[in-house]
């Protein structure tokens, strides 16, 4: 890295300062946001960081003119943050950036219009990313990572600034989404509730007026929350909304949505096409879907075991595990069809022994009692219509629609 000359460093810093002041005075939010986007690693910012590290006394430049010094509170920590960022000292960079962000929020409060929202978005994003990286640095040093938490509380403050009435409210959802990201990462999902409440109960501002990308993100995260709560219809609604509004070119985003939407849909008895799974590289669900189609309990268990870590991490493991009952249903249904082919008159009388045999063929070692129990639950959950003759160990299926389809309704409804 060639070091810039003193004059060059001076020029770069002044240039940056001028850009900042011009952006503020002309309310040129795009260029303003650019000035904050560390993570973009734009060459101008990198060279500025080098210049700052070389020049060292940037504060003097800020104080030199009134034009700059009025933003001294904002710029000084920003420079410090940039310096540390460039040097790879992310914890320091985060600290300085939070100071800068606080100062910027103060200034932002005083601006009547919401012109600087984009810059605020950039800050909210940068502070989150920076906090994550700082946490990584901290934990690699054996210290407790807490910067992301700090970023969360800072963003909560930003949310407070935006959540009121007025033109700035449009920005609230972006901050909310950043908060979601932090909370999901930290595992403090319960903190989302207050934010959600203030978004969803606000009558003054229609949800549809928020920017689309924010709406999609928001729906994605709230949909995930519903998955946690096993509230599948609501999760289906939210995730479907996210899917339909998501930019179709953003395949990564669509994949993320599908990752949760597919298990939800499976729980509702709706199976995806294989091509969908292939297109978005969600093959881990392939076996699950196959198992559901075939009534192959062994395949389901195998699939769950194979991707256990993945499913546990994404939080869909329990959802997929609950598909087991549907697999049983499918299996019984298949047996029923086979019996029907053999002897249509007695097809609705299903002997448990047959089911046990079928399971044994699937290498599922279950005895009569267990199968009886499972059948009882299937009837209880309305996956099978009929009754159970305990003494003769026979399930008597209803002649009318013995295996009702879920059709978008969750099991046990």
């Amino acid at each position, binding site marked *: 890295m060639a070091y810039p000359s003193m004059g060059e460093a001076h020029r770069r810093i002044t240039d940056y300062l001028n850009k900042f002041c011009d952006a503020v005075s002309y309310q040129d939010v795009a260029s303003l946001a650019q000035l904050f986007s560390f993570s973009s690693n734009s060459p101008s910012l990198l060279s500025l960081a080098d210049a700052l590290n070389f020049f060292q006394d940037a504060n003097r430049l800020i104080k030199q003119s009134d034009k700059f010094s009025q933003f001294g509170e904002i710029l000084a920590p920003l420079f410090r943050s940039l310096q540390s960022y460039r040097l790879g000292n992310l914890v320091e960079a985060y600290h300085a950036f939070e100071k800068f962000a606080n100062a910027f929020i103060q200034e932002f409060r005083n601006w009547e219009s919401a012109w600087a929202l984009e810059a605020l978005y950039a800050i909210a994003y940068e502070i989150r990313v920076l906090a994550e990286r700082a946490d990584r640095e901290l934990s690699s040093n054996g210290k407790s990572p807490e910067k992301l938490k700090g970023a969360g509380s800072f963003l909560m403050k930003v949310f407070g600034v935006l959540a009121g009435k007025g033109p700035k409210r449009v920005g609230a959802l972006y901050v909310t989404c950043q908060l979601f990201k932090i909370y999901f990462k930290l*595992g403090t*999902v319960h903190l989302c509730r207050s934010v959600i409440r203030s978004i969803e109960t606000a009558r003054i501002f229609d949800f549809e007026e928020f920017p689309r990308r924010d709406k999609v993100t928001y729906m994605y995260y709230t949909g995930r929350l519903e998955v*946690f*709560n*096993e509230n599948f219809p609501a999760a289906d609604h939210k995730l479907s909304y996210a899917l339909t509004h998501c930019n179709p070119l953003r395949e990564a985003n669509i994949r993320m949505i599908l990752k949760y939407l597919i298990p939800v849909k499976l729980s509702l008895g709706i199976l995806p096409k294989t091509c969908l799974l292939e297109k978005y590289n969600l093959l881990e669900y392939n076996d699950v879907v196959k198992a559901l189609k075939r009534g192959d309990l062994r395949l389901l268990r195998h699939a769950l075991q194979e991707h256990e*870590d993945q499913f*546990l*991490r994404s*939080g869909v*493991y*329990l959802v997929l*595990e*609950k598909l*087991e*009952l549907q697999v049983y249903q499918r299996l019984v249904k298949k047996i029923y069809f086979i019996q029907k082919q053999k002897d249509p008159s007695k097809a609705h009388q299903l002997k448990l022994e047959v089911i046990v045999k079928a399971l044994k063929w699937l290498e599922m070692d279950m*005895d009569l*009692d*267990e199968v*009886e*129990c*499972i059948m009882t*639950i299937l009837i*209880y959950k309305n996956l099978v219509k009929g009754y159970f003759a305990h003494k003769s160990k026979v399930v008597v299926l209803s002649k009318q629609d013995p295996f009702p389809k879920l059709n978008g309704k969750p099991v046990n409804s």
Partner: protein
Amino acid sequence: MMNQATNTQTLASVDPNAVENRYVVNANQGQTSLYVPSTTGSEAASWNMYRVENHPAESGSFSNSTYHHVQHSEPSSRTVQDGSNATSLATSSSLGAANTQPDYGGYTSYSNSAGTYSHGSAGYQGYYSGYQQQPNPSYSQPVGAYQNTGAPYQPISSFQNTGSYAGPTSYSSTYYNPGDYQTAGGYPSSSYTHQTTTWNGSNYANYTTQQYSNYTQDSSGAYAAGNAGANSLHYQQHYKQWADYYNQTEVSCAPGTENLSVVSTSTQLPQVSQVPGVSGGYPTSNSQAPTTFAPPWRPESSSSQTPLLQPGATVTGAYDSYRTHGAPSFQNQHPSPVQPHFVKPLESKSSYGNFQEQQKTACPQLPNLQYPVAQQAPQNYQPPTQTVQSLETQRVSKLQIQTNPRIASNLPLGLPKLDKEGPNNNAIAKPAYISVSLPKSSEKVLSNDAADTVLKAGVFPKSLKSYVQRALALCKDEKQSAACQEIMKEIITKATSDGTIHTRDWDAEPLFPIPNTDMTDKNNSQNPTPVSLFSKYKKSPTRRTKSRWEPLEEKSVDKLGSLNNYAAKYSSRVPLDEKDRKPIGASSEGKTDVMKKIRFPQMEQKSASKTIQRQAKRQRLADASAADNGDASSDSDKEQNLTAYYSGAIALANTPEERKRRENRSKRFEKVQGNRAESNHFKAKNAGTGNLYARRTTALVLSKSFEDGGNRAVEDIDWDALTVRGTCQEIEKRYLRLTSAPDPSTVRPEEVLEKALLMVQNSQKNYLYKCDQLKSIRQDLTVQRIRNHLTVKVYEAHARFALEVGDLPEYNQCQSQLKILYAEGIKGCHMEFAAYNLLCVIMHSNNNRDLLSSMSRLSAEAKKDQAVQHALAVRAAVTSGNYVLFFRLYKTAPNLNSCLMGKVYSTGLSQC
């Protein structure tokens, strides 16, 4: 100016004395304002209380006395007033404006005082405003009254009433009946004194702050102040904190006894106290509200005293200068007040006592100040100007003292002329400080006075002296004699406050039982007075609290502990006190000499020695080192505590009035209960014995006190050094939730705990017994901060026992502890408990996120564990609703999984 005018008018209406009183009042106002800041509400309340107390004392002759005090500035009329004025004041108060005006005329003649008054008034205006604000609730009226020349008294009375009504009620019969406190003609006087005192205190404070800018400077110069200024400041702060305590304590303790004692002592001390009080008040004002409080009172009293002595110019002049300069006027006042007004001074002392109760320290100071003044006055009198400086210096010293009564006494020492007296005063003050400090101070003052000008003879009846000597003669050792002194101080203060000091047949008076070295007896003997004295002693909030606390705690250890705690709490204060005390100590030595000369040499010596000891002790406390604190629990403190306790317990009421006062006091105590509770809490912690214990408590106290602005940081505490190392060798121990710091003698060391665990595990007794034993083991482990394999074993054992009987709350406690212990890397049956944890989560199911997180947290290694696998299988069975599998798993459950599964069944599966 209006204020002044009003003040003067009011004063005039009352009498010259009244004028002074008003001044005092004004000053008080100012002070009150200051006070309010410092102690705010509580102080105000305390003031009121004081007033009440004063009233009672004054009720008879007190009104006069109080007036005198207040009116000290009016010294010219003083003597007259003192004699008849006081009484007349009560009556005259009814007269209202007319009286006041005439008096005023006289007052004007006092021009000297007038000048001072003008100062005072000017100051008062300012103070006034401040005053009103502060006292607003109760004082608002008084303020108005002040402004209204004629009315002023009523307001004052109202003030008094507000504050001291409880006390007054009892008194009311005598004094209050004549008129309402508020309206009162008679009231005014009594109330005035009280008010004035209180007001003065407040005013003074203001003075110091405002007018005294000069003053403060002077004081600072003279005082070098350092002590005074800084101390006082600290004090004020402390005071604020303590204000509540003070108020409560004061109220309860002081009202009755103080009044009594005040009367008696006031007679003796008043002069000194007043003068000193003035000076002290100034200092206090300089220092801050608390000190100011006491000073104000004193000043008033002193002023009144001075007026008595030199009713005319000297007093007034002294007053003026006093107010303006504090010191100079004091000197003047001092001379005049000293001899003539001793009785009055006593009254003022009574009021002081009240103040002292509020601010024990202040009160002591006042006495001291008064003494010095008195002495100085005689001596300085001639060289007033010089004396002024000396006075200033004294004041300065007084100011320092202000914070603590003892300190105050020291301050007097600081005064050159007064020094001798001052020391005496100081010594006296100190005794008073302790609990009887006021009385003592009065006695000492008397003695000092005697030394100076045989004022004592005038002040105290001979019979009383002989009585004291008789009592002392019974004492076998120093401790006893010291206790005796305290008791006698209390008695005398009571008598003074009652106004019976001169009327009582001291020769026929039964001697109080000689106090035991333990102080309990002493306390008993002195009970009534001690109580009041103690309340007065409250001077320092800590002490007060102690005294109150002490009653609850009978154990000397506990007391010590509490003392330590207090010391720790007040460490900041203590230092100030110590400073003051140190001077006092020096002075006390000087005093001792003087005392010897004095009629009550023994008493004085004893007191001096005590004071010295106390000083030393306090210093130690100030050091705040744990060890010091342990030592710090000085005998005197214990004694005080004990005396307070006993005094409260024992009713020595010699007269119906006393009884009433006691009742009032007890009521007040009830109010104070809350504070006590807090202090008790501390005591409880102290329950343990030993240095460790003391250290711990101090640490605790320190940590608590930090919040109050203590200098020390919690981080500075070496917790390792404070960790208990058990010495108990018994294997079996019942669990008792600790309410205090652990006592090493009841804590088992690790080896014993290991045996205890074995014993419990092999025990055939029921779960309740095991749980109890295990809890005590856990407690001992926690107390000794043992966290190792043994800890894990104990928790695991307990968790298993709990699971066996389905005691889930207890199990959860253990589980959460185990989680932490495992996380610390301590080996144990980690897997077993991971399985339990899983089963628990399943049981409390419906929380998928918890289940997911605990499942995802399981390591691959854990998943291979039989118990964990079983738990996972159970989970799967539950989620799929496979009861059959569930019950099969139940049958094959390893460890205690089946116990939890039973729970799972009853909670989870039953819904299916």
